[in-house]
């Protein structure tokens, strides 16, 4: 393209225009990049379409890998079955006791709440889908969920699994959606310590772990093994959803591991935001990310 191809004028012009086209490609790319960083909503439609294609392939392949994986682990489960059976029976007895205790506590709780006239808003599940893919070659942490706009999902909805909080929806296709995981650097979850209830902030670190910091400056409140739950502050995430478990302390906070591992959660549920207005706010916040 920059080499002189010989004496042919036609070939020389061809190369020159090729060079111009590449420089134009760089400029167009930078303009598109600036647009998608300043207002991510500008390419919503086309990104959603590509996401659907991506998720349909990933979904089909996921079935295959899940079947193969299931066969392998299924065979493994027969190994040592008698001992496992005994253990499970013992666990079950313990769990039954705990369940009865929990039911009693829940009843008491309801009575107390009625006495205080507190109204409990139960979050409504919109759709349940599988986690079929992820951004495995990027510093950002996204997952692809197999439900989309046609299932009633909207951008900004919180996503959770049985094990805990997964993240929130940032890109929407018709049959699929992209989830910003709580381990992404741009994800900030208002949370609190389950032990003691001290308010903390959980921000992703981009490598699958989460930074937790106390909201109030002071003594480091964390211990290894502490459980972090959502606080419900801000109204997007419902309160008392499991978020992460502390694994390491650092000088003014701690590093935690999300309890819902997207690689092993089979189903994730998208819910309506805890407070209806929070979704609008979160959607607006997504459109104008904080510039640094």
């Amino acid at each position: 393209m920059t080499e002189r191809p010989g004496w042919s004028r036609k070939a020389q012009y061809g190369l020159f225009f090729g060079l111009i086209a590449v420089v134009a490609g760089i400029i167009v790319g930078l303009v598109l990049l600036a647009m998608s960083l300043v207002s991510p909503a500008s390419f919503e439609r086309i990104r959603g379409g590509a996401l659907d294609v991506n998720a349909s392939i990933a979904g089909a392949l996921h079935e295959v890998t899940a079947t193969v994986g299931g066969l392998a682990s299924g065979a493994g489960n027969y190994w040592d079955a008698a001992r496992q059976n005994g253990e499970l029976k013992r666990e079950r007895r313990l769990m039954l006791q705990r369940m009865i205790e929990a039911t009693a506590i829940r009843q008491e709780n309801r009575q107390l709440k009625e006495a205080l006239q507190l109204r409990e808003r139960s979050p409504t599940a919109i759709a349940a889908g599988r986690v079929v893919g992820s951004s495995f070659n990027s510093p950002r942490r996204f997952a692809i969920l197999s439900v989309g706009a046609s299932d009633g999902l909207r951008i900004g909805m919180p996503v959770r699994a049985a094990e805990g909080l997964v993240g929130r929806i940032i890109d929407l296709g018709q049959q699929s959606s992209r989830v910003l995981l709580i381990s992404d650097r741009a994800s900030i979850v208002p949370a609190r310590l389950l032990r003691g209830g001290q308010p903390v902030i959980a921000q992703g670190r981009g490598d699958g772990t989460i930074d937790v910091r106390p909201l109030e400056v002071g003594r480091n409140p964390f211990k290894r093994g502490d459980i972090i739950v959502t606080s419900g502050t801000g109204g997007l995430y419902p309160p008392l959803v499991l978020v992460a478990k502390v694994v390491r302390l650092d000088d003014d906070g701690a590093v935690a591991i999300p309890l819902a591992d997207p690689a092993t959660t089979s189903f994730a549920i998208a819910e309506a935001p805890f407070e209806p207005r929070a979704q609008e706010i979160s959607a607006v916040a997504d459109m104008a990310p904080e510039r640094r």
Partner: protein
Amino acid sequence: MVRSALGSKRRIGESPPGYAPYIPALSVVAASLLSALPIISVSGWYPDFAFLMLIAWRLLRSDPFPAWWAAPLGLVNDLFTGAPIGFSVALWSASVLVLDLADRRTMWRDYWIEWVLAAVLIVVSKWFEWRVAAWGGADVPLANMVPSLAISILLFPVVAWLVLRIDRWRLAQ
């Protein structure tokens, strides 16, 4: 190369089939589609396969595709990998341009020089990806990028070998 050409069933003087010139671009698109694999990673250390494919093709031949194709191929990659639109468009066009300039400057070429060139481009691409993530509100520590950088650089020879095999296959058709 000559030996592999002799292995072809094609008659002498007959050109490769009509689709042969499009194989390099198609293989880059196929590499972009690898992001649809159901790999659920919490670390993000996998390489950007399509970018490695693109520079491997461009290092192997000076004309795998017209240079301006880097822009639309980059757009396809952005759409499928979920990177901000325009990221690969700009990066890939710039990489192709840099490799053209490198073609002019290098006196001789061997595997080591190609690997070093690829490594430099991969470092720049990772740095750019890191900056773009920070502009998008996710300023991860630069140290987080090191494992994925090392994996990409170490994987490049494998991709280059794969590209060489594809090239021989398409010309022997």
